[in-house]
């Protein structure tokens, strides 16, 4: 068995395709998706404005917006108001905040209402929503300022004013997770889990090649026991999958500051995942009739499982029906277990269902492979 393991690991390490499929491609995916989605949270929201009032009040209002973290003001001095509104109509700009003439006068008068106009593209509701929220918030602050002045004018003390203005309901935002959920915590374990299952292609290729080249027939006339061959091949691919997971998670940790959490728990999930992926690969390798058939099955299983298992998008964002299907995939359980440890600071005692389910899939794969292996060997006589 040791001989088979050493041979297979040697061959895999000499195969350039192994590095591409198992290491380079997943790293490229991680870099690409972490770069795309990782920046969404950190990018400031631009508020395009047009100040017709050009007064101290309008300037103060704009400074208030400018002081809010996450927003930046942008003005296009070269274009007229009509030209900018036309850009919105043409879908080239999502919104425009207009401070109309008379804004300061309306504020000072106290009786008139100071209007602000927010023009926006009807199809860009999601983009405009944060701008609407921040403007609403500023308007509320103006109202509170006005109330404050009025109450003081009526002879109320500062303490009484504060008591009156304190909202009756306060929402406390408490995060239960010890670590923050960001796209790195989704992308790195997601693509690690997804690409572990791509090892099934290498397994199918190896088994079919050994069969078709006559090697398997030759091995049959050596004292090597068939089961030793099968287990030896399996262990070698488990080792490769373990190396693959270690490289990908280490890459996420050192390059993207991925929080690993309980490393022992992560290690056991990775081991179970490797056993699971290669166990299914083992079954596939001895059941398929050709390499192309094996590659097709692998792609359906890998891509399908990645989508419904929540490897590409957070699982909670998936439709209910897809979530139900997803819970039957090993990909879901692997990702769920890794995120439990990395985001929710779970430990071994918390992730044992994940370990059992992944090992169960692996054991099922082995059982199916053993059932079929005798027939596979008999067809390998060339």
């Amino acid at each position, binding site marked *: 068995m040791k001989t088979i393991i050493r041979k297979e690991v*040697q061959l895999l390490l000499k195969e350039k395709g192994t590095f591409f499929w198992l290491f380079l491609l997943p790293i490229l995916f991680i870099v690409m998706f972490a770069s795309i989605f990782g920046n969404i949270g950190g990018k400031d929201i631009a508020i395009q404005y047009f100040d017709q009032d050009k007064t101290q009040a309008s300037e103060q209002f704009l400074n208030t917006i400018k002081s809010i973290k996450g927003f930046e003001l942008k003005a296009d001095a070269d274009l007229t108001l009509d030209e900018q509104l036309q850009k919105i109509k043409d879908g080239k700009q999502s919104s425009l905040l207009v401070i109309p003439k008379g804004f300061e006068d309306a504020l000072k008068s106290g009786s008139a209402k100071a209007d602000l106009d927010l023009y926006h593209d009807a199809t860009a509701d999601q983009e405009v929503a944060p701008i609407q929220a921040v403007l609403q918030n500023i308007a509320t602050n103006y109202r509170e300022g006005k109330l404050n002045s009025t109450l003081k004018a009526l002879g109320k003390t500062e303490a009484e004013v504060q008591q009156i203005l304190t909202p009756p309901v306060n929402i406390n935002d408490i995060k239960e997770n010890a670590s923050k959920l960001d796209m790195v915590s989704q992308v790195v374990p997601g693509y690690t889990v997804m690409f572990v299952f791509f090892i099934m292609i290498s397994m199918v290729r190896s088994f079919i090649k050994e069969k078709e080249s006559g090697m398997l027939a030759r*091995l049959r006339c050596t004292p090597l026991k068939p089961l030793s061959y099968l287990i030896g091949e399996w262990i070698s691919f488990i080792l490769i999958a373990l190396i693959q997971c270690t490289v990908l998670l280490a890459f996420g940790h050192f390059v993207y500051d991925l929080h690993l959490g309980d490393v022992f728990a992560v290690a056991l999930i990775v081991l179970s995942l490797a056993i699971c992926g290669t166990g299914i690969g083992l079954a596939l390798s001895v059941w398929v009739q050709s390499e192309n058939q094996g590659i097709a099955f692998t792609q359906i299983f890998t891509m399908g499982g990645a989508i419904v298992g929540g490897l590409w998008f957070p699982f909670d964002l998936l439709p209910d029906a897809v979530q139900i299907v997803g819970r039957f995939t090993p990909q879901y359980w692997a990702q769920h277990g890794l995120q439990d440890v990395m985001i929710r600071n779970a430990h071994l005692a918390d992730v044992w269902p994940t370990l059992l389910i992944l090992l169960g899939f692996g054991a099922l794969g082995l059982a199916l492979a053993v059932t079929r292996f005798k027939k596979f060997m008999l067809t390998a006589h*060339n």
Partner: protein
Amino acid sequence: MSVIEVQGLTKTYANKQALQDVTFSVAGGTCFGLLGPNGAGKSTTMKILTGIIDGDGGTAKVLGLDAKRERGQIQRKVGYVPQEITLYDKLSAYDNLLFFGELYDVKGKELKARIATVLEQVGLTDRAKDAVQTFSGGMKRRINIAAALLHQPQVLILDEPTVGIDPQSRNHIFNMIRQLKEQGVTVIYSTHYMEEVEALCDDLAIIDNGRVVVQGSLQELLDKYVQQAIFVQAEEWAELPAFTHVKAVHQEQRGHIVETDNLLETMQSITQTALQQGVNIRELEIVRPSLETVFLTLTGTSLRD
């Protein structure tokens, strides 16, 4: 004493009868040729002997062990060289040999020594560390054979080991087989090249369409199935005159084949007649008996058809 005994062996693949009542025996320390065209049943017979597949009927015994029931013991005593080159191209010759040696439970220093020995036997010591994918076809075939010798088998079974190789590699293989035979190894050599059987084998069986057509020593078969003959070419003799001891005469493109039961007297008769008639004989030679003729006589077809 027979090292291999095959009795009434049959094997069917799907609808094709690959072997029909195949019977032969191989004496220890000899080189036994299994001669026949492609698809005759040679490889199937060898795979049954090595335990790769089971026969449907009959028995096959190697070193007194039943190929079906005592496969494990046979595998430790037999070396098998398949028709295909079954090596890992990306690994070096040394790593390939290390792999096969360990499968036969040869380990440590003993394995290293055996690898050195077999590399020397096949003449590839200087290429040991090179990847097999850089080797020529002939060199790959030599390593293919070397992999079957690591556990010092008592019986070596080679299935068409010289297909598509260069003369240098062929000579290496032939010399190696002769050396092994001298060391007491019994060799079974399958081929469809009669020249190889004539060059290497003590005994042979001709196999065609899954049946053993004939078995015996090379000389026995030639004596039994090939009529002695003389080739004669003389321009003046469009038709040959009568000579003594002649059995038959066949006209060939360049001359005549004269079958005889007494080579010397017929040859003397030809020369005397030619001298008397003043005929200028251009060629006069004894036709070398060949297995091709034996095969043609027994099957009605040429081995190369």
